[in-house]
């Protein structure tokens, strides 16, 4: 474990100078980001731009987890990757893109998706977890581990021209399992979406995490932030903590 930094370097002050002036951020907030590690599950259409913003904002370390290789159909939205990388590792391509953007951030990769084999260990290394995975099994696993290890999780999702972000704080808010207790039966792996929508949802998710770690603003914990980009509306829905939740409820082994 590295010793937490107590001061920004001159280079960091230069890089982050515009955001240091944001009310509530300052050097104190920036140092909190600098001393924090974020885990991003999947770096596709949502997780890629989300990780981009975490790296731009100056998290000390970002762990990217994503398996597989780049396909042409990824490239309408997976902006941490590019055409030259088709056929090569998604997560390595994303790491290279992000590392070029900000070499001051330590970027670690897991060339695999979240699974029973790696979820606990990956979550244990993070201060905050961002879920941008398509498969509900992965999202449920990440949620379970975040509750078990008392780590905040920002869950991000999208469909068509809509998206949602759910900031989850174990012990305080509903967990993902309270909101979606069962595998959806009619959800399809391939769904319509435009890259600008996935990036916008990603940016909202990144902002919630940045505010949470840096300690300013109002994190919408206990709410679903729902965005409809057809009508350009943003809606906040209060979530319901389920006392009988098998993950975070009163009788759950992980609670």
């Amino acid at each position, binding site marked *: 474990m590295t010793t937490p930094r107590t001061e920004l370097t001159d280079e960091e002050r230069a890089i982050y100078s515009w955001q240091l002036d944001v009310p509530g951020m300052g050097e104190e907030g920036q140092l909190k980001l600098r001393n924090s590690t974020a885990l991003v599950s999947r770096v596709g259409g949502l*997780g890629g731009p989300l990780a981009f913003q975490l790296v731009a904002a100056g998290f000390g370390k970002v762990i990217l987890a994503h398996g597989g290789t780049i396909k042409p159909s990824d490239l309408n939205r997976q902006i941490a990757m590019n055409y030259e990388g088709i056929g090569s590792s998604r997560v390595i391509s994303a790491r290279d893109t992000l590392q070029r953007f900000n070499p001051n951030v330590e970027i670690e990769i897991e060339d695999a998706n979240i699974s029973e084999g790696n979820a606990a260990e990956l979550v244990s290394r993070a201060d905050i977890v961002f879920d941008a995975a398509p498969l509900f099994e992965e999202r449920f696993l990440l949620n379970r581990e975040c509750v078990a290890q008392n780590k905040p999780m920002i869950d991000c999702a*999208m469909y068509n021209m*809509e998206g949602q972000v759910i900031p989850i704080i174990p012990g305080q808010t509903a967990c993902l399992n309270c909101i*979606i207790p069962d595998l*959806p039966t*009619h959800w399809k792996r391939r769904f319509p979406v435009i890259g600008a929508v996935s990036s916008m949802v990603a940016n909202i998710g990144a902002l919630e995490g940045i505010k949470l770690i840096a300690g300013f603003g109002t994190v919408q914990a206990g709410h679903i932030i729902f965005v409809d980009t057809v009508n350009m509306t943003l809606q*906040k*829905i209060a979530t319901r903590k389920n006392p009988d939740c098998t993950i975070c409820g009163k009788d759950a082994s992980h609670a």
Partner: protein
Amino acid sequence: MQVSFQYAAQLAGAAGCDGETRDIDPGTSLLAALTQLAQSHNSLYTDLLFSEDGQLCSSTLIAIDNVQINTASPPTLDTDCTVTIITPMSGG
């Protein structure tokens, strides 16, 4: 009373619109209101909203006036309100 139903994600596609407003008698249960509404929509709408036993699907988020409800014990509708229904969405 007037109840607005707001649809999102797959349900909006199944309904062919992002919402509709209906006159509903006060005291009608949400389950009954949605069951009645489903009769004017296609089978996918029904499949997304209801489980095989006719209860509300647990993985579909339903909120009344922006507060999530317990789908296992849906409330009655007593005043004008907006029912938001969001079927599951994910990353990708």
